[in-house]
């Protein structure tokens, strides 16, 4: 590339200093060292626009409509508002590509993606964006189609963008973690791949996200960040290896275990005996994970594993932050029928959301507006005291159907008892 065309970047140059790896140095390598002149010019132009943003403290991208044949979403279109000054990056779209569940890659796969990306795009990529997509940042409208065609042939598909089912996310889970109580990858793929049509063709009131964590540590932030959170848990007793408990006491001291395990239990269900064994009141354990995190060798989840479902988490727009709410305290997820039931709940939820939410309203906001009970009745789920922190405080309510509801409760309890044998 002609050196005289290089945009000066005095402010960005400062970000090449310091010990943390610098993205600016990376962009400059693409500008100066890449064999393809198209990429050199694109990187130079991008650096120029970014420097302009740093100097004026403003962003200069606007959206638009770009997709690939057959889909309505999956691309974040970006057109520059200062394209005259920085023409080689005036179209700089991002392709959102769905990673393998659990974000596992071989190095060969990454190299193959790098080869395709430098053929058509800017050569800049992020693993991953906040929703969980591989973000291929920087392609022209034309190149977007070519790049997608090439990687789609060898197994990659676009994720969601806009008011649609979004790319899902799951934790490392059973692949490497002893706390896992679920088959995260299977849940992730069963859910999101049932709704592939809703991923590619945005037609919902707003976005809808699935996230799956294998245990209540919730490493993918599903309660806070997803409309449909699936979290592994167990309902029998946690497993205690008392000889490892004794080893732990020997290594760390009795005070450490009292201060950091026993007294930290949120439901006060643990005690340390005089013989340095742990006694656990499992009926009152809320599966918070703290003691298992501190003593992973001595304590493990039980064998009767399953999942808890929470619905409606989201960040601030428009009514404020909402956490997901429990709608299924526990369900087994062992058989094909169990998975079908999970997918059925998701389908009911999305259908109800599509029909009842206002434009740009998330599932949690819809539930806030119409009340949890109306939502539960809409998707055919019975009420359960695990869904609330405490029963209602306000006396302003009509309870005309009390007798029928109470009867239904006792009938359900009798059914559950009969089913348990």
């Amino acid at each position, binding site marked *: 590339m002609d050196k005289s065309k290089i945009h000066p970047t005095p402010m960005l140059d400062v970000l090449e200093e310091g010990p943390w790896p610098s993205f600016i140095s990376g962009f400059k390598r693409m500008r100066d060292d890449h064999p393809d002149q198209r990429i050199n010019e694109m990187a130079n132009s991008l650096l120029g626009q970014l420097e302009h943003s740093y100097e004026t403290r403003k962003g200069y991208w606007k959206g638009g409509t770009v997709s690939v044949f057959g889909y309505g979403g999956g691309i974040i279109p970006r057109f520059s508002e200062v394209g005259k000054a920085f023409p080689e990056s005036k179209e700089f779209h991002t392709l959102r590509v769905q990673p393998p569940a659990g974000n596992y890659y071989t190095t060969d796969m990454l190299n193959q993606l790098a080869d395709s990306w430098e053929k058509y795009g800017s050569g800049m990529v992020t693993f991953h964006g906040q929703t969980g997509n591989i973000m291929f940042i920087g392609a022209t409208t034309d190149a977007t189609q070519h790049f997608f065609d090439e990687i789609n042939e060898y197994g990659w*598909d676009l994720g969601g963008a806009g008011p649609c089912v979004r790319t899902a996310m799951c934790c490392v889970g059973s692949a490497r973690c002893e706390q896992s109580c679920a088959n995260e990858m299977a849940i992730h793929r069963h859910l999101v791949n049932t709704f592939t049509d809703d991923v590619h063709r945005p037609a919902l009131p707003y976005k809808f996200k699935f996230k799956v964590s294998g245990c209540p540590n919730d490493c993918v932030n599903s309660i806070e960040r997803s409309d449909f959170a699936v979290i592994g848990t167990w309902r029998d007793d946690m497993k205690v290896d008392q000889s490892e408990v004794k080893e732990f006491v020997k290594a760390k001291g009795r005070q450490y275990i009292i201060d950091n395990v026993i007294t930290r239990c949120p439901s006060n269900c643990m005690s340390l005996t005089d013989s340095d064994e742990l006694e656990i009141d499992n009926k009152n354990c809320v599966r918070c994970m703290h003691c298992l995190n501190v003593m992973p060798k001595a304590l493990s989840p039980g064998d009767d594993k399953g999942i808890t479902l929470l619905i409606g988490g989201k960040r601030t727009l428009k009514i404020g932050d909402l956490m997901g709410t429990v709608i299924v305290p526990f369900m087994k997820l062992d058989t094909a029928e169990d998975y079908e039931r999970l997918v059925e709940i998701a389908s009911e939820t999305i259908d109800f959301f599509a029909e009842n939410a206002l434009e740009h309203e998330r599932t949690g906001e819809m539930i806030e507006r119409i009340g949890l009970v109306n939502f539960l009745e809409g998707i055919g789920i019975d009420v359960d005291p695990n869904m609330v922190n405490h029963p209602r405080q306000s006396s302003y309510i009509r309870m005309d159907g009390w007798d029928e509801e109470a009867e239904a409760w006792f009938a359900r309890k009798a059914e559950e008892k009969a089913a348990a044998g």
Partner: protein
Amino acid sequence: MSDKKAPPRMPIESGCPDGFQYMHPVMRKNYGQWKYHDHPRPGVLRHVAHSGDEIWTVKAGTQRILDVFTLRKLTEIGDKFADGYVRFTIRSNIEYMVADKSKVEPLIKALEDAGFVVGGTANSVAMISHTQGWLHCDIPGTDASGVVKAMMDELIDEFKNCNMPNRVHMTTSCCQINCGGQGDIAINVQHTKPPKINHDLVSNVCERPSVVARCPVAAIRPAQVNGKPSLEVDEKKCICCGACFPPCPPMQINDPEHSKLAIWVGGNHSNARGKPTFQKLVAAGIPNNPPRWPEATAIVKQILKAYREDARDWERINDWIERIGWPRFFEKTGLPFTKYHIDNWRGARNSLNASTHIRF
């Protein structure tokens, strides 16, 4: 007709690929059969399966936006020093998994020699999860990658070591939509002035009813301005949230001078000990000061210092503040408590102290 255009290629709707096939063989073999893990040194995890098999994970921080040279450097290290299998964490760190302990030290050396930073495990300050900012977003109030690079330069020792009472997850967001998410410490843009409206463009660019509907406080009304259909904002009602800007860019909310940074603490996604918590405002009015945002970093370091000195083992920032109380948090960090810290949004009453529980 020979010149008839070929029909466009239609996509193969394959959806999310199965990750199982791309896992390290030891992880495939022991799927769901892990017994425990330990933490031999910062940046390294050892997981032991019931079968006795071990998998060693080395975690490294990167610049997150990878150019293909950097990506190939990472894969080359994976081929040469690891077993060719990697994964990325949700905070965009790369993880290499190896079955053989003897590969760990050479792998760490190769990563560090190439400029990557090994760490981010256990009680460290993890990589800051962040957004796109000026580089790619259409509504950013600030940059993301630059803020994070500048901050991680200062916090690198806390990433490489495990000196904190528990892990610290940080996030940044370049508008109040907060795509960076909840964090133990979150650094987010806060707009401080109502949008300036470009009335010439509104009728061409915006669907006015949806802009009106987007406002959380009903401060926007349709109006005729200079004979053209436009919008007007009740500036007394406006909370400067910026929600009108995405559907209607002529509602200019970003302001080079008046868009500031604010810092929030105590967001915690985990159910460990307490229930998950949202982050709370602690500092605002911080200048949006590229290229290094030193004022924001200084406050983050102040908070980290107080947390490190005063929190007990295993306390996340929210646990620590719950134990010592908010008055002491402000005392220990030296941050001012103002009328703006008292919430007035819906449900705000639940955040007021309706008791005599007061620490003296």
